[in-house]
């Protein structure tokens, strides 16, 4: 019996020592698991992004390179860039200010994904609102999108090109247009996602009017305004003019283009305004 008492006491002491050891390493373990939890959410978010979001927001979230899920063909990106400084940098990012969002950044992204954006191509994702994703999946996607925020992305000095009032002044700075490059940009900026292929079938256009005849029509839209100036303004300030037959005609959501924010996206480096010149050359608006 004495032996049993000794064995029992020693076991009890060993157990206490082990528990003490476990308690000591606990703070660092908890931290590791907190990070691990987030890491795995990001992994899962990456998988969901690949299967659900890439066709519109692009392979690296820059809304530049999009592929049709079924055929694998490159298509115009219908979505906005998410791997994008103005969306992710600062506690209150530029996009949150533009969209009048008062809450936190994760909540901004979560709300956008959950409910989609009414009147745009951004679908509703949350099961609560009729979408296909569960709340935990939305949460994983939010973590994934936020993970694009890096010092590198946010340390790039914020640049905003001051767009001149007239197309002539722009052309003075960027005189040469490249139609071939414009053709590519028309896809990567997502113009074709809404306007369809201007060299193809007009029935193809979905959200915006087909632009195969834009070169002839642009000059007739606003009295006294050249076609060049009209297109220039239409891209930068979509709300300035709404195509007449638009609310009922080919485009189901007249304000759709506004949030694409080409004013900012085509002007966030000193060279970018060239993109607009190239696109306009491709559309036959500029020679």
């Amino acid at each position: 019996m004495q032996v049993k008492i000794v064995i029992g006491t020693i076991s009890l002491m060993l157990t206490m020592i082990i528990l003490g050891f476990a308690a000591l390493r606990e703070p660092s373990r908890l931290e590791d698991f907190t990070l691990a939890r987030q890491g795995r959410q990001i992994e899962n978010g990456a998988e969901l992004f690949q299967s659900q979001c890439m066709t519109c927001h692009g392979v690296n979230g820059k809304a530049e390179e999009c592929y049709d899920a079924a055929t694998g063909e490159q298509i115009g990106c219908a979505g906005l860039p998410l791997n994008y400084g103005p969306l992710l940098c600062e506690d209150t990012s530029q996009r949150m200010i533009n969209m009048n969002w008062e809450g936190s950044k994760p909540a901004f992204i979560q709300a956008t994904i959950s409910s989609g954006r009414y009147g745009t191509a951004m679908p509703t994702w949350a099961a609560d609102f009729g979408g296909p994703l569960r709340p935990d999946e939305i949460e994983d996607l939010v973590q994934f999108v936020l993970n694009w925020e890096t010092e590198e992305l946010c340390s790039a000095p914020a640049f905003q090109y001051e767009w001149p009032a007239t197309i002539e002044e722009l052309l003075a700075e960027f005189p040469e247009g490249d139609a071939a490059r414009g053709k590519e940009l028309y896809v990567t900026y997502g113009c074709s996602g809404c306007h369809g292929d201007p060299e193809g079938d007009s029935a193809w256009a979905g959200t915006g009017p087909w632009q195969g005849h834009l070169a002839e029509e642009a000059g007739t839209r606003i009295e006294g305004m050249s076609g060049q100036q009209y297109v220039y303004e239409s891209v930068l300030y979509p709300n300035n003019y709404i195509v007449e037959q638009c609310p009922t005609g080919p485009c189901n959501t007249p304000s759709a283009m506004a949030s694409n924010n080409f004013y900012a996206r085509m002007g966030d480096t000193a060279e970018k305004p060239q993109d607009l010149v190239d696109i306009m050359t491709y559309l036959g608006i500029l020679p």
Partner: protein
Amino acid sequence: MATFPEQIREMGVKQAVIAKADEVVERVTAGMNISDIRAALRGDEPRRPNPRLRPHADSFWLHIRPSFYHTEVTHIYPTFRMGWLSTFMFVWETITGIILMIFYTPSPLVAYSNMWNILSNVPLGQLIRNMHRLGAEVMVIVVAMHMLRTFITGSYKKPRQFTWATGIILLVLTLMLSFSGYLLPWDQLAYWALTVFISGAEAAPAPAIINQNVLLILQGAPSLGAGGLLRWYLLHVLLMPLMLGILFFVHYYKVVLHGMSLPPGREEIGEDTAKRVPKNERTYFIPDLLTSELMWSALMTLFLVAGALWLWDAPLETHANPVVTPLHVVAPWYLSWSQGWLKLADKTLVVGFIPALLVAFIVMPYFEVGKSRRYADRRVGLSVAFLFMAFMLVSNWMGTPEYRVASSPDREVSIEILPQEGASTLLAVPYDEMLEGSFLPGQDLGENYPHLNEALADLAHAVLANSCTVGAPKITTIEASEWKECDVVTLENGDKQYNTTFGNDLMPDPYVLLEIEEVQPKLLRLTLVYDVPEPDNPNEFRIQTSWTAYRHADSNYEEECRYANKNC
């Protein structure tokens, strides 16, 4: 009797306090004062009348325990302490389970994040969770061993048939407790194991209308969801433990009533002398058995705490997803045999056979009426028991995906190297060692990449196990001699199959590549690319596919792989 202040006046403070303490101890122990306890611990003879018997008569906790045992049944043999251990495990599970309950809400919306909260935010949460889950598995083993020992020592025979019968019900309850807890983390493992298992109800040999309603009751809805989770939670924390607790007392009451059976060789054939214990063969509960039980409790606690800390980690897969069925849905090992049977026999037959088997077990002692409990007289019975055990072990193995699960060879490689759930050697390669680039199975990247090399070696093994050669191996980093020759079989429809003795429909001379690229800061995409040309027509692909997984720098699969129960 004098009041405390009077006592102080009479004998002084010190003596009065000692007297009071003595009185309190005597009340708490229902009969033993301090010097009685010290005498018991020292191993002295008790005074007369024996104070060590009074707790059995007067206290609640000990009134169900006998005050002495036959010395013959207090050694390791014949009980192996297994019945006692089963009880200990039940208490252990109750305590750890109640702690977990504090941090758990049975709702599909939060159950899974509750698990992560326990792991990442509750001090010692992982330890408690591991202790509970390890305890559940140990309890199943211990109860099964206890059953085995009562069979082998013939303790189920008259007059203990009813003890055995309640035992079988306890076994079922133990399994159901373990299994109902399985669902609670609401991860893929849990969700699909349960979905597949309870779908068995559909195939029961009963009218369809009954089956459908049983299934509906088990799932709480046409498929497992919020209602189902709540139901299984209540089963797990309320109904099952309650029934097990009640049945335990029935079981144990019978054990005490009949006395524990002596080793078979100790009594005449056909006699039961357990209750007639001569004075010189008594071992008293206090102090001997009590000490022994406390020692075993301390040892088991040590084992379970250390095991849960270093050896065994409770799995937690990704969130339950009703639309994605994992490639291999496996039952927990203690129910794997049923999956094995399902692969061989008709579902209705299996689902009908299991309750029939249980009834057979319950009534067995009433039909098996051989008088002798001695081993030499029970050759047939013992042989049948061992055959049955062998049968269960083989069935259990057949229940694992290793036996007869059809899936494509590339999938088999993929889920071994980049599993949908849990860790693997590749996922557990330390993040700094992960290189961006394309790698071949078996490639050696030099001494700076020991873990990645190991993972690529694993990939080579997996590829070799799922492919064969028709004479033109394409993966240069695997020795030509390692490929097994294909047996080419032409099917009726003219298609060809490439087989070896170890598997059918393998990849003939595949080209496999692992691509690693960074897609976000601290996030890698790992892609396995398979190109398997048609051997007869190199312009066509038999298999051309890829498989992707992601790996974040912090996801810490390394930690998981430290444990012995993870296969990486």
